[in-house]
């Protein structure tokens, strides 16, 4: 599926958070969204998935969800949003319970998702007894289990160690190869964006506007190879400069 963001602006009361955002997320594309803290990334994602009504503009979708998709627009939330009164398995099952699946299939899907994220042995543990990274992984499992058409990922790997992150990135790319899920991915890790994204959108400081769109013009499979290191480093530098400009401007504003 394809997402079209048309002239979206948003303000929380008197605080303008987004202004004039036009964006097209192509079918099967992974689009990373980066920008300074508090610039409106999460807000934009909420608008894209129909969870928040923008004060201006609209979001449209084109195409039909693939067969087997239970929830076209699916989130991984920045703050995980786990139900504290449900176990890990219960939290993942929540996404399936209102769909007509057999008990066995539901159980199977949950078990598969939990073993993907490496929490099978914690299936019956309550979120309050998990570490931060474990909670985040439960949120990921819950999103994967519904086979989404568009994944809306809000810093999905922020609480994970480098190695677990790497494993999950590989898992995710394998899934993506199979289903060609469209994904919008917020991150503050440039390396992660450069691993995953087809294009990287840089937002300005609040109120967030699109400052630049950077295409990652290296085939995804080749990005970890030594040959690509130069190009990746160059892109990294470009993004870094774009972000620094914003930070400098923000600092100047503060000083004034």
């Amino acid at each position, binding site marked *: 599926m394809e997402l*079209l963001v048309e002239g979206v602006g948003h303000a929380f009361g008197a605080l303008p958070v987004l202004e004039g955002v036009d964006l097209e997320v192509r079918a099967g594309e992974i689009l990373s969204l980066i920008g300074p803290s508090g610039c409106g990334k999460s807000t934009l994602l909420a608008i894209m*998935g*129909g*969870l*928040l*009504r923008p004060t201006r503009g609209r979001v*449209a*979708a*084109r*195409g039909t969800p693939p067969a087997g998709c239970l929830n076209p627009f699916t989130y991984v939330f920045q703050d995980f949003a786990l139900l504290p009164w449900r176990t890990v398995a219960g939290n993942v099952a929540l996404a399936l319970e209102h769909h007509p699946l057999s008990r066995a299939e539901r159980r199977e899907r949950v078990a598969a998702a939990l073993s993907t994220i490496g929490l099978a042995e914690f299936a019956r543990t309550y979120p309050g007894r998990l570490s931060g990274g474990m909670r985040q992984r439960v949120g990921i499992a819950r999103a994967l289990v519904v086979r989404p058409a568009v994944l809306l990922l809000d810093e999905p790997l922020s609480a994970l160690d480098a190695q677990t992150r790497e494993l999950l990135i590989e898992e995710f790319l394998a899934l993506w190869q199979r289903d060609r899920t469209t994904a919008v991915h917020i991150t503050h890790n440039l390396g992660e964006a450069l691993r995953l994204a087809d294009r990287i959108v840089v937002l300005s400081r609040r109120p967030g506007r699109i400052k630049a769109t950077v295409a990652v013009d290296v085939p995804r499979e080749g990005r970890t190879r030594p040959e690509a290191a130069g190009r990746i480093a160059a892109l990294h530098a470009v993004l870094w400069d774009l972000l620094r400009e914003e930070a400098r401007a923000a600092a100047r504003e503060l000083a004034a």
Partner: protein
Amino acid sequence: MSEARSVPFRGGGFVLRPRRGLSLAALAALLAAWQAATGSGWANPLFLPAPTTVAATLWELAASGALTEHLLASARRVALGWTLGTAAGLAVGLAMGIFSAARAAGLPLVSAIFPIPKIAVLPLFILWFGIGEPSKVATIAAGVFFPTVIAAFSGVDAVPRTLVRMGQSFGMPAWAIVAKIVVPGALPTVLAGFRISVAIAIILVVAAEMIGADAGLGAFVLTAGNLMRTDQLLAGVVVLSALGLAAAGLVSAAERLLLRWR
């Protein structure tokens, strides 16, 4: 290529907005239903006189000054009893929320004493507090005490323990943790408890004023009942209701002020 359709909006809802007009309409509807019930004969006017009749009675009472006298006497008792019962209830309830020993000892006592009907212990109240104001205030305070205790310790139970650990990590003394973390965290539940306890305090003014009261809405209502003056009885009830509405309004205001962060 297929048509682009707006992404369906799924958010919203589950957020409450005040609708003052509707609140007033609800009260008006209550009055209208009452009027209709008496008009249609569904409720016997002997036991439920029409609101117009009750209004007339109220007007008379107000004109004679009796209403003010009764209202003031009762309101003072309610205010004093509620304040005492709430203060004691919060102290005990917080202790039961914080200390295992207080909880273990207090919970069975609360569970055993709360369900004792007030009228069964009125003679004891007279014995201990006499027939003056103290026994009336004590009756109301006792009725308010128990629900407040329960609300307070349940509220404390709901405070996330990570916040307490945070306070400890900053070397906050225990009293500061209680005052700045436990109490504010318990506040939503405690305020819900207040909503219940103000109503109970008003209900109990009737039981309290069984004990040698000259003035007061409770005594007035009881006397009206003994004499089968249902218009006066209902007039008294309407005033108690209004008192309840006013008290609930104060709780709502407190919520708006103290729970702004929600």
